[in-house]
């Protein structure tokens, strides 16, 4: 190494700050998604409902409080262990409505289909949607179909929107975290993301992991009815995983969150897959889990109720809301050290070795 390499005048090009085109990371649920929402959509549509930036909007029509939400599904592959794009499209919107403690009632279904898509697959997918909506107790009451030229879409995209009735007066939203609250997760995390990765043909690894895709509205409604106002917030940690959801809520509530690493439920096979792929399960997507932030005095009661439900048997308390207004999520490691669990930037990248 020569002396001149010791100087500080070393390396690195100018940063690629400005994006003239949309990148995949803009849709990852991480910082770039947040930027797009904050810089484009929020100012463009500026109103009091949107500005809460929850997974659903709480609107008042006459004397009724309604929950309203929409989500698009572009999952690949369309069929995966534990579900398919159809069941996912029903569960996802049902769960978004459930985060506010609403009773989901009606869904719409919009299909964008690539020319040449097998009819048999469409039947299977629609049948799963029928089953999923029956199980969740919602009706699909309107829809739309568009077909595009071959190559102009990847097989099939589905959009669902949903309306639910809010029958309570409680403040249940992501900006309502209070110091001392306990954080419950309703089961093992990261199943969906790992199941999808494993199902992709280009990845040559096999696992028995199934997607956790499931409707959580019965569980959340029960909680709202029994634990009521002591439930401060709920969020389904989909893209960006538990890390993104907790960061969003901590920031919106101006509090910090402290997690205990050895309390976070991760299946051994999911943990193994994450080790191999270089992923952190806290950032991997879930489709059948809810983060429930509850007043400490009611946490045990809430946990007991959640565990009575089909999709809440492995629920556990993973952390607590703490003072401090920086919106930080801190993880106490199993060894007793600590680290910050930050908002993800874009999608996680597999590590080199």
């Amino acid at each position, binding site marked *: 190494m020569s002396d001149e390499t010791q100087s500080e005048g*070393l390396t690195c090009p100018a940063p690629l700050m400005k994006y003239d085109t949309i990148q*995949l990371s803009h849709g990852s649920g991480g910082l770039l998604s947040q930027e797009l929402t904050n810089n484009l959509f929020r100012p463009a549509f500026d109103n009091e409902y949107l500005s809460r930036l929850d997974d659903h909007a709480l609107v008042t029509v006459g004397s009724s409080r309604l929950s309203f939400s929409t989500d698009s599904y572009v999952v690949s592959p369309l069929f995966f262990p534990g579900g398919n794009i159809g069941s996912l499209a029903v569960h996802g919107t049902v769960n978004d409505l459930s985060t506010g403690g609403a009773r989901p009632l009606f869904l719409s279904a919009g299909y964008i289909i690539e020319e040449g898509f097998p009819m048999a697959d469409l039947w299977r997918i629609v049948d799963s949607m029928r089953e999923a909506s029956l199980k969740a107790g919602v009706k699909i009451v309107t829809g739309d179909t568009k077909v595009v030229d071959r190559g102009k879409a990847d097989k099939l995209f589905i959009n669902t929107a949903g309306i639910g009735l809010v029958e309570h007066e409680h403040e249940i939203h992501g900006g309502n975290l209070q110091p001392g609250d306990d954080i419950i997760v309703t089961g093992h995390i990261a199943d969906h993301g790992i199941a999808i990765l494993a199902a992709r043909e280009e990845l040559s690894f096999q696992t028995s992991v199934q997607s956790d895709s499931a409707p959580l509205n019965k569980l959340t409604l029960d909680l709202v009815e029994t634990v009521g106002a002591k439930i401060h917030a709920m969020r389904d940690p989909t893209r960006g995983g538990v890390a993104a959801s907790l960061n969003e809520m901590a920031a919106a509530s101006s509090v910090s969150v402290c997690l205990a690493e050895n309390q976070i439920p991760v299946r051994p096979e999911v943990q193994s897959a994450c080790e191999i792929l270089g992923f952190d399960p806290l950032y991997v997507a879930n489709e059948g889990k809810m983060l429930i932030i509850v007043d400490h005095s009611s946490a045990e009661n809430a946990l007991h109720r959640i565990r009575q439900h089909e999709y809440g048997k492995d629920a556990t308390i993973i952390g*607590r809301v703490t003072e401090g207004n920086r919106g930080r999520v801190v993880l106490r490691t199993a060894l007793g050290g*600590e680290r910050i669990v930050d908002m993800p930037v874009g999608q996680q990248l597999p590590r080199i070795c």
Partner: protein
Amino acid sequence: MKHVTEFRNPEVVRKALAQIKAMVTRPWVIMEICGGQTHAIIKNGIDQLLPKEIELVHGPGCPVCVTPLEYIDKAICIAGRSEVIFTTYGDMMRVPGSDLDLFRVKSQGGDVRIVYSPLEALQMARDNPDKKVVFFSVGFETTAPNSAMAIHQAAVENIPNFFVLVSHVRVPPAIKALTKSPHNRIQAYLLAGHVCTIMGWEEYVGISELYSLPMVVTGFEPVDLLAGIAEVVRMLESGQVDVINRYSRVVKKCGNQPARALVERVFRIVDRKWRGIGSISQSGYELAEEYAPYDADKHFGLESIDVDEPDICISGVILQGLKKPFECPAFGKECTPQTPLGATMVSSEGACAAYFSYNRHLNDQQATQDTTQYE
């Protein structure tokens, strides 16, 4: 997972920490050479648990970090060509070149695909005979055998549309260069377990003797890391100079001989530029003459590309362990994982990314306050 969890056992970790505390009598500066170890140390909070006398310095062992800018630019140049399927390990996607990164090439229509192994890229070449499939072959001795196997296989099958852009680097010359630097502070090394799995540790014995450096072959789990640190502290305290293997469940003295033989056949050792550090003698691999037809650099006529690295970030100083990431004025401001100025911020193994992700730069007092409330 049992084979992993037993190496994360908090009880064993506590015992190792107590052992280290009992041994230490004065300050020591130890470098973990491998980025994977840097990540594991910070992810588990191990550096916070060590006695304050022990300073861990994060070495240049992140293959993404040290890939020179001109190779990123070459990759971008190739990936944008319409006849090419460009394949790469995931974390090279976001490394900024002079103007673009591979993500942007992809969003502009380039066919850029993430693979886990060069053999997947070779399969793509078989499946797409009308395309040129190029693999971006970066990394230390750890990933070199995979590339060597793919190239060798391509030659055996006479596959004409498979190419590799080679920017491999070797650890021993880097340790020599770091040690010879007039600014050197490193008193001992934790050697990279993965690299030694392939190469063994014979080649470090001479370096250890020549520069009086204790070295310990070390693994990546908390128990492994602490075993390595304990061994190196013991050697430092007792004045012992040697190379000791504390990752013996994986690493053999002679390494993986078939893998080494293949690497020696397919590659030859050359001088190599390291991003942020400069050229280090004998520190890289390029394709041996016999395999030159598979060299993407030659095939696409890019050999003349040579890029001067702009002088905004201090990743070179950080890679050499002379400064901590948070001592860089751009750290966490202009330079974040979202807008990386240098590769140390891009790779999850990079020292800057590890510090940023786990917010080591923030006020420790506040972090302690946040967590103690949970207990």
